[in-house]
């Protein structure tokens, strides 16, 4: 019977429903996309800040250092000798980051074993899903996304590209696959610094674009960063404190987003009320039919609620799905804006709750208004 009622209502108000559906879906898609961007940025920043205690690179702005040295977005020409960094007594270990060649448009990083040890320490999880770090020059370690996307297994032979040419002589063999870290590392490949020198016929120079430093204790991070930041030609930052500052400056953006969402919810409520006002007569006639046919007030209330849920629910499904679809299609463009790959497209309880709870409240509001109108209307009922 409820399906019959839904059929009647859909046919009766189809144009109105359709318009409302489009505008609601659009509102929800915007709300969802905003939420997705914000969560992605916040979680991306937090996850990346865990990777290292201190980041050192050639002299540049903090922002550029963060983007290039931690998010591995591009490689500066300047290199820094490891010897300069051995001054601080608080350093536990150093991991060089050398932008090497590429493989199928994915970044290849040359580093040392210590990189993986530090990774385990920072993320408090096993670094390797399968295999191990490098033991010889032919070994290559790949990120979780690379393994999944290209279906690479241990022992797979991998060729590296450099500029226009290919290092056909230097075929690498996958020795390890990293666990997923939800960071840029998932999309990278790693070779030993010795392999990098051998491929490029370089002498052992110990020069890297960046260094990821693990402090003896996290409390020393700021001090180490400060020490190196003073040295000419170097810039350094402690990602954890940098993120705190960054997110603090991001509070203004968050407040704007919250205000936007609130405005959208108000628009939503106004649309709902205007719908009920426009459809008052036919809506009340329908309630009257139900009432004269013996429906209880509870059933009529439920049918009103169902109506609201039908519009709002289908809008939520369409809005969220289109938001996810659009974010997937334009993930590269979004990555340029938010700096991070969209890794949180999947179900995120906080985001969904922040959308669904206001929607549910709106459904109750719509039901309450309909019920009030009905109560007033039913006082003058006659056959």
């Amino acid at each position, binding site marked *: *019977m409820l399906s*019959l*009622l839904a*059929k*009647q*209502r859909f*046919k*009766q108000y189809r144009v109105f429903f359709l318009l409302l559906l489009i505008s609601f879906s659009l509102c929800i898609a915007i709300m969802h996309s905003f939420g997705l961007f914000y969560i992605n940025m916040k979680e991306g920043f937090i996850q990346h800040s865990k990777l290292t205690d201190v980041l050192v690179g050639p002299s540049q702005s903090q922002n550029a250092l963060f983007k290039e040295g931690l998010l591995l977005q591009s490689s500066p020409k300047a290199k820094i000798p490891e010897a300069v960094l051995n001054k601080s007594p608080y350093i536990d270990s150093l991991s060089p980051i050398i932008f090497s060649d590429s493989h199928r448009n994915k970044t290849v990083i040359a580093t040392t074993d210590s990189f993986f040890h530090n990774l385990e320490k920072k993320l408090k999880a096993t670094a390797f899903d399968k295999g191990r770090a490098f033991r010889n020059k032919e070994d290559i370690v790949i990120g979780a996304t690379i393994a999944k996307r290209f279906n690479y297994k241990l022992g797979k032979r991998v060729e590296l590209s450099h500029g226009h040419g290919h290092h056909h002589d230097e075929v690498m063999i996958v020795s390890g696959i990293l666990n997923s870290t939800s960071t840029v590392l998932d999309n990278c490949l790693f070779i030993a610094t010795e392999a990098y020198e051998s491929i490029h016929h370089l002498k052992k120079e110990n020069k890297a674009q960046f260094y990821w430093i693990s402090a003896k204790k996290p409390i020393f991070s700021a001090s180490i960063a400060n020490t190196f930041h003073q040295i000419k030609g170097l810039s350094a930052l402690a990602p954890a404190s940098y993120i705190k500052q960054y997110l603090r400056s991001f509070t203004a953006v968050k407040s704007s987003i919250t205000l936007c969402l609130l405005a959208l919810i108000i628009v939503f409520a106004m649309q709902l009320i205007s719908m009920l006002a426009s459809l008052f007569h036919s809506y009340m*006639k*329908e309630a*009257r*039919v*139900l*009432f*004269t*046919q*013996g*429906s209880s007030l509870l*059933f009529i209330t439920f049918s009103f609620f169902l109506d609201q849920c039908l519009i709002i629910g289908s809008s939520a499904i369409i809005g969220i799905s289109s938001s996810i679809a659009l974010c997937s299609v334009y993930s590269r463009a979004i990555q340029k804006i938010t700096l991070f790959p969209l890794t949180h497209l999947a179900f995120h309880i906080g985001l969904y709750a922040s959308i669904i709870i206001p929607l549910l409240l709106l459904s109750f509001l719509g039901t309450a208004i309909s019920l009030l109108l009905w109560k007033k209307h039913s006082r003058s*009922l*006659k*056959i």
Partner: protein
Amino acid sequence: MSKSLSYYHNSMEKWLHLKELQYQWPNSSKQLSINLESAANSLLISGKSGVGKSSLLNLLLGFLRPKSGSIHCLGFDKPLHKQKNVSSISQELLLLDELSAKDNIRMAASLKKVVCDELLYSYIVKVLSIDEFEHKAIKHLSIGQKQKVAIARALITKPKLLIADEASSALDKHSEDNMLKLFKHVSKRLGTKIILVSHHEHIKHHFDEHLRLKQEGRYDHVKLISETTI
């Protein structure tokens, strides 16, 4: 007010009691006063426009409140419009326009939580010739066809009491006869009591009793069929 002409036999069970019922129209000095008891299976209420036929039905159903007096019908405590086994047909018909005739009829059974009797459904649909437009949406039907659907919808729930306001106003002679035939059938087979408001007094011979409302609150109450026929 003329005296009611009552011919009841004492052994007949009276199901309708309107005791000193008075109704005052709002913002008007016009008043309806009725004192009536009935044991008939079918009651026709007629009268000119504005004498209070529909108001009397609304009083019976509980949509209007009397100024004084009381209404007792079939021993129900609640207002009749809240009773599951009372059906009513409004002048406005109150059908769901986008649904088919069939869906409207079946929905009534479902709303009143009555299992739709397929035999009864087929019979009603056949007698009222609804089968010709059973699957058409109400919005595409004529007023007469809509009236037939409203009648079918009221009867499908096998009510104890059917209250109909101008149920045959848009029906042709043949369809009106069929409707009355159907009313008689359900009254006999299901024991449904029928109260019909109509302008057409020529149909009074189909009813057990006739209540003719007149101007200024007067009325004639006539028993038309002998007790043995009832």
